[in-house]
């Protein structure tokens, strides 16, 4: 098993955009990483090889786009980690974790139902919990005026920003903050 520091280093090496440490007592997570959508499979494979299981896939809609959190729990020792991806608000697309975690199929279909996030190569991306003939936009999407920005939601713990683009998202420049 890899320790938290080891995992931190491994994620940095694999190309994470942001790696955050969390306070487990209040956040219920030890470590999380924002990763590029196209390399989510690489990260998931590492966790799968180390005996992690996929707990759930939780999507949030924010001003910046769809923020998908994959929660993992270890089968060997206590360890709750999260991988996150930020997807384009117009065309949210991310590769499916199905090749590694077959259980991801349903979790992804759930996010597809409620947010319209498209999981590429999910073998059966049809409505799961909602009726097949439901009209209208995905029901958990928010009114654009109610969207919060990621920096307001406090999801990053103590971040180590590895990609300069994320610096603005996590610590937005002062002026737009005054607007919000």
């Amino acid at each position: 098993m890899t320790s938290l520091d080891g995992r931190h280093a491994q994620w940095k090496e694999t190309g994470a955009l942001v790696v955050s440490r969390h306070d487990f007592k209040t956040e219920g997570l030890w470590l999380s990483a924002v990763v590029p959508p196209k390399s989510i499979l690489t990260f998931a494979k590492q966790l799968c090889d180390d005996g992690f299981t996929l707990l759930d896939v939780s999507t949030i809609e924010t001003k910046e786009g769809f923020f998908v959190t994959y929660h993992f729990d270890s089968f060997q020792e206590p360890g709750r980690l999260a991988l996150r991806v930020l997807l384009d608000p117009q065309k949210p697309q991310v590769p499916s974790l199905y090749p590694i975690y077959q259980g991801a199929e349903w979790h992804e279909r759930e996010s597809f139902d409620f947010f319209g996030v498209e999981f590429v190569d999910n073998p059966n991306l049809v409505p799961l919990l909602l009726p097949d003939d439901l009209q209208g936009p995905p029901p958990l999407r928010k009114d654009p005026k109610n969207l919060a920005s990621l920096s307001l939601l406090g999801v990053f713990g103590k971040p180590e920003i590895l990609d300069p683009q994320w610096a603005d998202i996590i610590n937005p420049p002062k002026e737009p903050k005054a607007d919000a």
Partner: protein
Amino acid sequence: MSSLNFINPFGVRDDPGTVVGDFYTDNFERNARPGTVILNLGPQHPSTHGVLRVLAEMDGEYVVRAEPVLGYLHRMHEKMAEVKTPWQFIPNTGRVDYLHPISWNWAYAGAVEQLAGLTVPPRAEYLRVISCELNRISSHLLWWGAFVMDLGGVTPILYAFEERETINDILQIITGSRLTMSYFRFGGVSSDIDARFIKLTKDFIPYLRERLKMYTGLVTDNVILRRRVEGVGPMSVDLCQRYGATGPILRAAGLARDTRRDIPYGVYPKLEFPIPTGPSDDCFGRYMMRLKEIETSLTIIEQALAQLPSGPYMMEKAPKATFKLPKGETYFAVEGARGQVGVHIVSDGGKSPYRIKLRAPGFSNLSLFAEAAKGTLLADALAILGSLDLVIPEVDR
């Protein structure tokens, strides 16, 4: 006559282009092999315990492929969480899983307390353990009866209900309800236990231990049951890992993972209890696992009653109905009767949470059914379905 587009009422596809079912049947049929029969089980079917539908592609008596179809009991709890205040959502948690509502109470109250940094007084922590474990026993008992009924033995569920009724009577004293309990509050529980509760619980523990012996003689050692469940539906640790299955399924497969022990919450670290594993990863293993867990829960209740401290059952300055969550994110998990129950809250500091995701253990457990049922006899597939201990409202949320 040949120009008539004949649709075989038994589902044999003479013409692959003909749509005979609804959207899901049609979608399922597309990958079917020629010569097989598509069988639709449910949504109203005695062995699906609620409104679950299973599509199965049959080759004779064998299941070639199966696909559960969900959503018949979907109530959009996650949306309700976004429009209600945290307080208003408490009763919803009792309605997600009607067999073990207190675990959902706990997952939600625990998540809110974790995010807001509330401290629960010691007595309330013990009351939580006692109520949660009693509820776990009643959930397992109902499963036990229903599972044996699935396999054709109708009598045992009547015995199981006798015990379950006793637990309901006991829990009714403190929760006020018999099914959809909402006992937890942020920072404590809604009421204290009284002498009557303690006496009934203390009498119940030795009574159930005796009854469990009778269960062994009546059902567990029954050769008909053994033949139906032994070696049926093996689920390895690897399968559980790939599908995120937790709870008795995982422990029966031989891995001692239990949230109560691994990521402790409440006063579980102060209590001594074993995490049983095995004996086998088939339906019989899962059957034995749940019976063992009833005994574990009895041990926990005994200890909790013995250690029960005095004091308040609610924290001072407990959150009022106007309570707002601070901004931030949290994930909190507890061990429910079916596995790890998780609540993921993201809050922007507003009146109601920005987003709540409920992780239902039954959802992940059911997702492995398609793989586990592949190539089994239909009767065995139903045994596998029963051994997963499904509560459909929890799967659908």
